[in-house]
């Protein structure tokens, strides 16, 4: 079963969420502060990070940014306010998804499952799209023969879009396909993830070649 690193400073909330996550079948590893989380309290075992935004010392945004520097572990932000500022800042820091406190355990479970969901490996040969090589068998992406490090969410978004080149996907569709969100999913998740993906694979992010915006409709892959 997956191991969750839960970073939460409030003891009651920490214990409550730990109980709920254990009941759902997860291994839980606890950190009270951002510093403890960054010190690798869980070792290499963590599969997903559930990260409170309001932490004493190093706050949740900073923890997320530093985790992102050398790891592709999925991060779910636990925002206490649900205010737009927190959500936007969390997504800019590189979070894969967010939930608003107080969160029902089954909602948190669904989000964790979604970010951990493994894509089905395909036995197809690597696809060439310009300078980009996408291998659906080994889940590797090469840009000019160099491997690109993508988070699971970014990889899934790229695989979904590139599976049907030139087809336009609405933000809603992508929220369902990549994040497994319901109708009211936050389309800013898609926009933030597209920005991060572009930063990794596009030469010029202002004139993207691979992940193109179709104004008023959504996004498409190519035409390269």
């Amino acid at each position: 079963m997956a191991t969750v690193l839960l970073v939460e400073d409030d003891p009651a909330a920490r214990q409550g969420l730990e109980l709920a996550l254990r009941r759902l079948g997860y291994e839980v590893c606890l950190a009270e502060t951002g510093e403890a989380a960054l010190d690798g309290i869980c070792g290499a075992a963590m599969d997903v990070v559930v990260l409170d935004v309001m932490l004493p010392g190093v706050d949740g945004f900073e923890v997320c940014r530093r985790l992102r520097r050398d790891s592709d572990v999925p991060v779910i932000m636990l925002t206490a306010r649900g205010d737009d500022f927190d959500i936007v800042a969390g997504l800019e820091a590189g979070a894969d998804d967010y939930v608003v406190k107080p969160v029902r355990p089954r909602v948190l479970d669904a989000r964790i499952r979604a970010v951990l969901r493994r894509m089905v490996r395909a036995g197809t040969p690597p696809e060439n799209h310009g300078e980009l090589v996408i291998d659906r068998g080994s889940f590797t992406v090469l840009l000019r023969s160099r491997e690109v490090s993508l988070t699971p969410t970014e990889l899934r978004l790229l695989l979904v879009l590139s599976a049907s080149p030139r087809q336009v996907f609405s933000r809603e569709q992508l929220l369902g396909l990549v994040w497994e969100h319901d109708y009211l999913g936050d389309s800013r998740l898609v926009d933030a993830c597209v920005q991060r993906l572009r930063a990794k694979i596009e030469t010029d992010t202002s004139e993207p070649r691979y992940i193109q915006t179709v104004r008023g409709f959504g996004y498409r892959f190519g035409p390269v």
Partner: protein
Amino acid sequence: MVRTRLIVAFIAVALLSALVSAWLANVVLPYYHYRLAWLADATGSQVVRTRPVYPAGPHPAVVIGLAGAAVLLAVIAGAAYAASRRVLRPVRRLAGAAQRMSGGDLSVRIQARGRDELARLVTSFNTMAAALEDKVGELQRMEARARQFAGDVSHELRTPLTAMTAVADMLGEHPGLDGDTAAAARLVRQEIFHLGRLVEDLIEISRFDARTAQLVIDDTDVAAAVSWCLKARGWTDVCADVAAGLTVRLDRRRFDVIVANLVGNALRHGSAPVTVTARAQPQDRGGGYLTLEVRDHGPGLPETAIPQVFDRFYKADTARARSEGSGLGLAIAWENARLHGGHIEAGNRPGGGAVFTVSLPLNGHTSPSTSSPPCPSRCAVPPSGAGKPPRKR
């Protein structure tokens, strides 16, 4: 105008004085000349007993008198104008200050000059403005503190609620609990979720008060949004009649909240069947409104309740100790409509039952509505009375 009247009065006085001078000159001069002639006679010249003979044309003394009067008149008029301007300057300043004040600028003050009545008036005005500014400032600070407090309390409640919500589902799961303990556990679980909803709504309201609520606008298929809203909440017996293909640019989550809160309110306080209808009402120059109506078939709203129905925690039926909702649902719906630049109106249908009409700006393109999904006959919608022109803001 006080100034004009003052000038006219000055001119009238000047004219009058000039006329009097001229008349005096006319009366006095003949006698003067007669005296001169008489004096000449008395000193041994030729004696003339008849009327004195004057040279032709106006006498030089009269000409000089009139010219002098004209100059005097001009000087007096100029002086009157300057004096009136000077006297009225504080009055002009007061008028300007009062106008700025009524526009909301309470910091306006006027410099008082001299010690006359007008200077005293200016000083009184300044005192009044300062007192008003203090009072309004204090009220605003009190209101901000109260709102900040409500927001802070809600945020503080969220932390214990996070722990409680996380474990609430475990309560009552244990098969070994006896009847009463199991009932108690279920009650606690249910009330935790109720408290959670209440705190969520309070936080939402405090965001509107703090003006931090923001719209996340998307192209939204209104029929899909309404049908998802009803389905997600298990309201299968609510009939939706929305033109297919109607796409409006709005915040999907907030629109969902508006529909859910209005329908939830209709189900709680009205009677079935509850119907939701939505139509686009385009106007000239590309504007127009999306009109959404939620109707029920209950007794309708009491007339006295209609103006207050969107107030926070307002309950039309005072006998009801606590509603199942948070008591903030309609207030939140109203704020969400306002955030979109629209509004909601509450009223009663002529045939009975309450109707809530939401008007939201279209702000985007609308596809022509060709067909409507069939509406079951049991909740057949009467001809839409949605022709009411939306109030412009």
